[in-house]
């Protein structure tokens, strides 16, 4: 096999993708910490640091365009670059959602008493963190099975968000409208975590395309075909 200079360039790109992934995971983690502690300063830190993620997203986009133009890749190389571009966008959106969560802390939640919530925002937050981590691992390791697991876990996140939403509306907003600002802020937080899970699902779908050249997005029946087989 020939060592291609192109492979070095792909390695550099992958390294930057792992960097933005790490920064995004860190942003989620810090936003959860700020939420749990109702810490406005910590939340403001998440918001201000988002700019670094944005700049890295732009850099990665440029790298991909440059490689597409100069190398005219095909087959697995082409699929990797297309996936890299999509994952780059997904990670930046996830980081934006972490910012949105932090903004709820700053604007509403830090200054108001806690609502005792039966529903499980911490559990939803945990699912969001886990699915993002697993989606990134699936990308790094070309692991279709792990990617499939991420896609299947999205349903649990949706159900949990729906349950939290029902509780916030029925038990708080309807019964005591004075609690509405806090309840709505928490409703949005739950929505943001659920959207993070959606983006993790998108990353996992893109990984399956990258590895297997099969499009499973919008095609739940196609997921049946991925059952523990890893591509070379």
């Amino acid at each position, binding site marked *: *096999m020939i060592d291609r200079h*192109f492979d070095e360039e792909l390695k550099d790109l992958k390294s930057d993708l792992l960097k933005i992934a790490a920064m995004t995971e860190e942003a989620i983690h810090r936003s959860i910490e700020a939420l749990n502690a109702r810490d406005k300063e910590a939340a403001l830190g998440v918001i201000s640091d988002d700019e670094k993620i944005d700049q890295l997203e732009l850099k990665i986009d440029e790298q991909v365009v440059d490689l597409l133009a100069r190398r*005219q*890749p*095909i087959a*697995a*190389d082409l699929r990797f670059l297309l996936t890299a571009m999509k994952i780059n966008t997904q990670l930046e959106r996830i980081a934006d959602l972490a910012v949105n969560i932090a903004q709820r802390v700053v604007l509403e939640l830090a200054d108001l008493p806690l609502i005792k919530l039966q529903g499980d925002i911490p559990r939803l937050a945990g699912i969001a963190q886990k699915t993002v981590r697993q989606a990134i691992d699936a990308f790094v390791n070309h692991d279709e099975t792990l990617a499939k697991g991420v896609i299947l876990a999205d349903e649990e996140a949706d159900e949990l968000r729906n349950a939290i939403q029902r509780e916030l509306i029925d038990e708080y907003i309807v019964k005591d409208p004075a609690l509405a600002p806090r309840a709505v802020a928490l409703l949005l937080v739950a929505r943001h975590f659920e959207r993070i899970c959606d983006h993790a699902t998108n990353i996992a779908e893109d990984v399956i395309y990258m590895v297997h050249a099969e499009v499973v997005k919008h095609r739940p029946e196609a997921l049946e075909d991925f059952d523990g087989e890893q591509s070379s």
Partner: protein
Amino acid sequence: MEIKIKAEHFNFFYGAEQALKEISIEIRRNEVVGIIGPSGCGKSTFLRCINRMNDIIAGTRAEGTMLMDGTDIYEKGIDVVELRRKVGMVFQKSNPFPKSIFDNIAYGLRINGITDKRTVTEKVEKSLRDAALWEEVKDRLAHSAFDLSGGQQQRLCIARALAVEPEVLLMDEPASALDPTATAKIEELIQELKRDYTIVIVTHNMQQAARVSERTAFFMLGELIEFGDTGTMFTKPAKAITEEYITGRFG
């Protein structure tokens, strides 16, 4: 879709050396098939088998069948001259005759029995138009073909092949000696010509195969490794070895 050319368990030998091994492939009417593969893989040999150009090399032998419209072209009694009229060929290095532009085209017509001046003139113009060369040469048909640029000479060779009304065009790296602009013109021409002809093109240029062909055949060491839809082959090849070749990991 109608099959124009069909090789079945086709083997070809240069003396004791087997250059093609059990090639079975179907090429449809009016499609463009690209043939890719590393040097020495047999792709040009295969191309030349389709119009029996290899016959002129001493010591060669073919086994299996090569059907054109259902008839085995290696059967006894096949008129090879007529075969080569029906199956035109364009080579890597353009080879216009040392004649005028007009006579380069008219020559083929005349030796095929078309001598009426008006008919010859009309057919010369048509061939040059079909090869997208007419506008560039119409005012200098009496000039030597060697006055033309490399890309124009190649289009003249294509026009020459078209003049005798072939059904198939074989192209052996037709643009590899040309600059990017001339290459683009040849590739555009191929897209036009496929309306009327079946085209088989051998190319070293992966991107060219991707641009011009509907299906691509990958040859290696005399064998047909993979053959299929060009888009699929270049995004998701079935065989690992195809992937390695087309991504430049070997060859």
